[in-house]
């Protein structure tokens, strides 16, 4: 009998075998599990999925929050407006640039910090505390603090530039520098989170692999490049996806530091959605923007998962 025939026979046997009835204990365990899951699932349903459905429905209507009863069905007009007017494309473009900046800077800096924290160098505990402090500090506090630091006239950073003879910079009031300033602030705030995730990944890498490579004559750089980084691909994927989603959802920096300006140069999409709904009173259009943002975030996450899929297990 060939292997193929054996497999076929085995699967046929599996198919005809009657399903074993669950024992009383299994039933009780399933019930307990359902009981524990139910409150969370209920909250998830009420506060996540139902609003998503309502949002999707609202994206086909034109209405204001001040008078929702006067809503009008407009079909795909809100989506057509996104193409006809520049605001959506501009805001999405700025948000992608912001996310790209955050991911490109956070990943290497967080990884370098994690390598340092994973070593036996002195002051690791102090550095760990220092990099985690911004993560646990409120975004409002961080944004306010950075607004003072980046003040074009009296900010600490401009004071330092002035002291070393460099020209003062406009930072948040310049169309060319404001977004970069927000990326720098986000890097400072989020790098600790990335570093802790990378550190957890590093501590899970089997030491014997690098030891074997070192015995075989590999340099530290070769070990890092050929063993550590490939084995950290799952962690890297996680950090990239998390940082991308965080960046695409960023609201506080635009709201508190720049109000989307100057000249919309920091008009991040979530802030734009907030403005569209609450200030411009175009809640239907804001819903349509939210639907597109949801689809974009899903698509980007799926692409990242496909591109950074892990090829090694340990």
């Amino acid at each position, binding site marked *: 009998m060939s292997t193929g025939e054996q497999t076929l026979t085995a699967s046929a046997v599996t198919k005809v075998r009657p399903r074993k009835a669950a024992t009383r204990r299994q039933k009780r365990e399933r019930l307990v599990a359902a009981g524990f899951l139910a409150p969370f699932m209920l909250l998830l349903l009420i506060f996540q999925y139902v609003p998503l459905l309502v949002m999707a429905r609202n994206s086909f209507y*034109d209405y*204001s*929050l*001040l*008078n*929702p*009863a*006067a809503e009008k069905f407009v079909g795909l007009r809100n989506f057509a407006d996104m193409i006809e*007017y520049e605001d959506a494309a501009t805001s999405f473009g700025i948000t992608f640039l912001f996310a790209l900046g955050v991911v490109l800077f956070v990943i290497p800096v967080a990884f370098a910090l994690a390598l340092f924290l994973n070593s036996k160098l002195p002051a690791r505990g102090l550095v760990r505390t220092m990099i985690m402090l911004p993560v646990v500090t409120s975004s409002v506090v961080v944004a306010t603090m950075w*607004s003072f630091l980046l*003040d*074009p*006239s*009296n900010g600490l950073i*401009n004071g330092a530039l*002035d002291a070393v003879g460099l020209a*003062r910079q*406009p930072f*948040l*009031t*310049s*169309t060319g520098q404001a977004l970069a300033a927000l990326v720098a602030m986000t890097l400072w705030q989020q790098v600790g989170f990335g570093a802790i995730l990378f550190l957890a990944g590093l501590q899970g890498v089997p030491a014997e692999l690098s030891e074997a490579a070192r015995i075989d004559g590999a340099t530290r750089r070769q070990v890092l490049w050929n063993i550590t980084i490939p084995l950290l691909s799952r962690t890297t994927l996680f950090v990239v996806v998390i940082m991308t989603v965080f960046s695409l959802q960023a609201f506080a920096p635009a709201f508190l530091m720049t*109000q*989307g*300006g*100057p*000249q*919309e140069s920091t008009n991040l999409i979530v802030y734009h959605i907030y*403005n569209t709904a*609450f*200030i*411009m*009173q*175009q809640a239907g259009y804001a819903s349509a923007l939210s639907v597109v943002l949801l689809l974009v975030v899903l698509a980007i996450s799926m692409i990242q998962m496909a591109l950074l899929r892990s090829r090694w297990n340990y």
Partner: protein
Amino acid sequence: MKVYHIVFAGLLGATALSATAVQAQDKPACTGESVTLRILRTPGNFPYPKPMEAWQKDNPCVQFEINEVPFAQLADTISVQAASSNPPDVIVYDGPNTQSYAASGILLPITKYLPKGWDDDVLPATKAEHSYNGEVYSPGIEQTTVAMYYNKKLVEAAGIKPPQTLAEAWTWPQALEAFKKCQQGPAGAATVWGLGPTRFGNGQPGLVYQDLPYQRSAGDPKADPSSSAFKTYWALSPDSKSVEGYLDTPEAVEALKFYQSLFNSEGVAPKAGIPNAFFDGKACFYIDTPAAGNALIKDPKIEWGTTPIPYFKTPVVHTGSTTFGATARSKHPEIAAKFVVDMSWGEYAYMNVSQRGNLPTLKSLFPRFAVYNQYPMKVFVDQLQSWGQPRPPGPKFAQYDKIVSEALRGVAFGGDPASLMADAEKKVQRVLDR
């Protein structure tokens, strides 16, 4: 038990009984159905406790439930709560939004509840701002406008004598010379600024309330209605339906180039907020409402004076303040409307206005505020009566305010005035057409 114990107990009992009697006399018992009015307001805003307590004596069946939100979140909160199944009965809101809230059906028309003589007594600017389609939606309580404060010590040290009457008011180029003369430290990074930052919002320039008059003052309200001078002054068509050709006129662009120079080439005003800059002696001049003057009268941290707002061609200042109204979907519309109207009339209005120190909306109350009959606070009253204009009114004011403020801020930060205002026109028009 000793005799003095009995006397002492008797005295205590008598005091307690008399106190109860006084309380009962102060707060008449409610004989009808008890009603609770839900009020949404900002902290430190009217209606104030004293007039409310006085009003409750006449209306013992009415109780109040007050919810407060910071001014920055007020419009958002109203957006959400007004559409809910249980909206507040009375809302305090930013005055220029009256037409927007009236058009959306949030506010209850109160024309029929207004007392006799209200029409003649109220300031015309207040009535215009709070009316929509022939109905009055808010009686208004207080009115504000801005003037330019100055630090006497700094200004006198620089040899400057600011004008004290409207007839002698500076033009903007004259004011700029004064800013430059008084400023200390390098342009753009001064230790004492020529013109201090606003206390509104986050302290950045660009607010319609304070900064749109730069370009409006370059226009002329008496010019031909099709002329750019006329459109520059009004900044929105008379029917509130068009803004095209009203914001990017040659006169407006020229005025905005001057406005931009204050923050850039001349460097006499900061681009970011500095908390309490004027009150801490870090600014020679400063633009604010009468509330700042009244605070300085109570706590004179510095020696100060006021001077009228400078202009290019036609002097103009914006009016408007927070106000309040009864909601159309209130469960007690009659009582809510009565409360709102009562609070803004007669003695209750006086009690409310005197609490914060802004200007009253009733002409009959002006003589009772002696402070406004003499310099420096008289400048506000004179400006209000001679130069005051509401911010471009219409049911889409909130959107206009947001878009134009962003454009003005862009100009202050160095953007091209012509293209920024043309872009703002397009955006506002999209909202008006929708």
